[in-house]
């Protein structure tokens, strides 16, 4: 579980980007990415798709997103294209369905890539700050606090897991795959995990209120700053 917990955290935490490339305000970046997505939804002719692809490519190069970004996104594109082209081929036949299917998949890809680029190039605290302008500030606080305490919560649940496994609970990875062990999973891990999450939420809320949380609506500090 220690290794799994670390893996879970790493998988999520690795998505927290470092600021790289140009230093552009997050709000402006979000606006540009949303506009690019809207353009992709509206783009029908091939030349429009080529122009949009070039713009996206320029942004990727300007922000130095690297080879791994290309590899990951191209894999998504190929997988998605196979499904859509297959469906189009079934409907219109192989000759008439392949190209329209590919163009639709290309369009869909261009609609989603700007969002991924925004996330990859914007620090988490900046995104939270931007979101706080368009959502209630308390919600933005809950959002950033839950993400901040994610690691602590996983540690607490790991402690519960280890204690229950030592007590003989059938909750090891090799046991979880067997459905007859699921009652143990519920009683030994899920329920105590939920109770612990509630306790942590209560403690954070108490600490926030003790510091007069809610008196001033304009936050000056966000977790991750």
């Amino acid at each position, binding site marked *: 579980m220690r290794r799994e917990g670390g893996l879970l955290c790493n998988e999520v935490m690795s998505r927290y980007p470092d600021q790289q490339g140009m230093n552009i305000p997050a709000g402006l970046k979000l606006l540009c990415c949303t506009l690019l997505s809207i353009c992709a939804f509206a783009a029908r002719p091939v030349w429009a798709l080529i122009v949009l692809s070039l713009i996206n490519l320029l942004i990727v190069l300007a922000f130095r997103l690297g080879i791994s970004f290309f590899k990951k996104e191209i894999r998504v594109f190929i997988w998605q294209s196979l499904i859509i082209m297959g469906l189009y081929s*079934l409907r219109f036949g192989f000759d008439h369905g392949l190209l329209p299917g590919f163009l639709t998949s290309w369009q869909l890809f261009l609609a989603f890539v700007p969002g991924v680029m925004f996330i990859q190039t914007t620090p988490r605290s900046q995104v939270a700050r931007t979101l706080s302008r368009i959502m209630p500030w308390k919600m933005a606080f809950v959002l950033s606090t839950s993400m901040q305490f994610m690691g602590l919560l996983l540690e607490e649940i790991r402690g519960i897991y280890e204690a229950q496994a030592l007590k003989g609970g059938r909750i090891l990875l090799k046991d979880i795959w067997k459905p007859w062990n699921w009652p143990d999973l519920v009683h030994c891990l899920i329920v105590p995990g939920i109770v612990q999450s509630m306790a942590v939420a209560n403690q954070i809320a108490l600490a926030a209120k003790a510091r007069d949380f809610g008196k001033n609506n304009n936050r000056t500090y966000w977790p991750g700053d």
Partner: protein
Amino acid sequence: MIMKERKGREKAGFFNIHLKDALFLGFCAVFILIFRAAFRLHLNITGHSMLFSIFFLLLARGCISFRLAASLTGLLAGCMAIILGLGKGGPLLLLRFVLPGLIIDMGAFCIPSMFRSYVLCALAGAVASSSKFLSTYIVDTMIGMEKSIIFQHALIESGAAILFGIAGSFFIPPVIRRLKAYGVIDY
């Protein structure tokens, strides 16, 4: 008097929900994303993420006596997914999390005791998971796909999601029963 005033101040704003309850919903949202991310490492089965999404959305509504608890959890999960770059929906990711939440909230509003019944939970889970059909349909329509292909594509996407959603909802009745027995849920 002071306690009353504090309680009143605490409940003001943010859909009239206590901060500790809102934080618990935030944790449920975090768990949805953690399991989504973790299982994407090992599995690549369409719709498997619905297992955890439906479980935690039902759990959020079952544990917190707030009418929009599941929707709020979905909204938080959607925002976190956007922030963390999970999924490939961009801003449309919100739809994928909020729609199931709204359906669960509506179900709980109509039948408040649904969290005790396996059948009702499975039904709520299935209907909530089927919202993937709608979100896929909307995205594909916006792209301008052929109508019959949109239908097939959305059907493939949502079929597996419904099965996983039902599986996730089967964990809810024993968990809620136990939490009530421990006195963690008192409504």
